[in-house]
């Protein structure tokens, strides 16, 4: 069966480099799946889960935005941070979630609401992805 190569790259390391049968990304315009011989595509990504299938088994990766480049059966995801579901530090994500919620609850001038919102979103998404270990 035809496969495509998936690379998930962050500034600090290459998180995933694998042959996959299918990749599903959370694009800004909605989720999209990539099968082998997909048309060349460049899409910005939302904070969320990236799913790829190897030997019929789904693997989940948390991706904090960034973008995906699909070209010639090569999928490259560039993100500022990304983690495999198994590597997610749930305790840290829980703490981040609580902190962000607290900040949003006591809103005042000092709290950057957009930043807290984004932090909350990231933490929730991390926890979501972590359930798929």
């Amino acid at each position, binding site marked *: 069966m035809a496969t495509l190569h998936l690379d998930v790259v962050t500034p600090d390391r290459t998180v995933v480099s694998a042959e996959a049968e299918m990749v599903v990304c959370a694009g800004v*315009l909605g989720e999209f799946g990539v099968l082998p011989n997909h048309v060349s595509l460049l899409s910005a990504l939302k904070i969320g889960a990236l799913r790829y299938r190897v030997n019929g088994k789904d693997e989940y990766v948390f991706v904090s935005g960034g973008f995906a480049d699909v070209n010639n059966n090569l999928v490259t995801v560039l993100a500022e941070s990304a983690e495999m579901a198994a590597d997610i530090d749930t305790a840290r994500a829980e703490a981040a979630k609580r902190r962000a919620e607290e900040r949003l609850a006591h809103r005042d001038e000092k709290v950057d609401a957009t930043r807290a919102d984004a932090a909350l979103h990231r933490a929730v998404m991390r926890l979501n992805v972590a359930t798929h270990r």
Partner: protein
Amino acid sequence: MPSLKDVKMKIVGVRKTKQITKAMNMVASAKLRGAQARIESFRPYAAKYKEVLAELARKVEGAAHPLLAERAEKKGCAIVLVTSDRGLCGSFNGNVIGQAMRLAKEKAAAGMTVSFSCIGRKGRDTVRKSSFNLVSQYPDRMGSIDFPLASEVAQTVISGFEDGTFDEVWLVYGEYVSMGHQPPRTLALLPLKAPEQEESSPAVDQGPTCEYVYEPDEAQLLAELLPRYVKVQIYRGLLDTSASEHAARMAAMDNATRNCNEMINSLTLLYNKTRQASITSELIDIVGGAEALK
């Protein structure tokens, strides 16, 4: 002639200095290995980023993105200066700071107000003493550089550029070329120049790339990608400077250890000479005394 004890003390002192320089050399070489590994792992990200951006920039020819626009009248200029936090690394910091100051004077002569954003203590200290404006500083961060730090720096210069405070932004850092060569480098950050697709890059022979689908459209994607490219470049500057700092320190400490060895040798020679001289003079005394008794 110095006394025997003085020379002995001096030898002990130099020997202790040598121990320190040797230890610093070893620490620097361990840290350099870490810094090199980080540059290595950043390379795929940077290379891919450049490739994607070049491809996109070619597609959106003459795109009027605010970060790309060259301004006709230039009043403000920002310099992001990346240096190390600590000294004892030869002329490395001096070279980088010298380059930045030359650039600053050039810009000031052209009638621009120059503002500095400094990462690393050495650069900050120099700028604080100079007449130039210091807008943001990140001292004591070179030991723990990460992408969020680069983002933070990029964010301040980008917002400064967007609200018209800065019409030009430059990055000055120590490029890591090799163990023995870390020249200072100046890079224009803003207005951004989209990277050129290199002719020899593998992307060219990956088949037709003209029928790309963009989600959302090209202009929006470009707006998304360009600010991040500034972060990528700053992060690169941080990584390079950190590696250069350690390489420069290694070389400096290696030199210092060698100098210590030389000094110990010449001091030991002096010590022996002094010892012999004192023995000789004692002998003369004894012989003279015996002679007198006859």
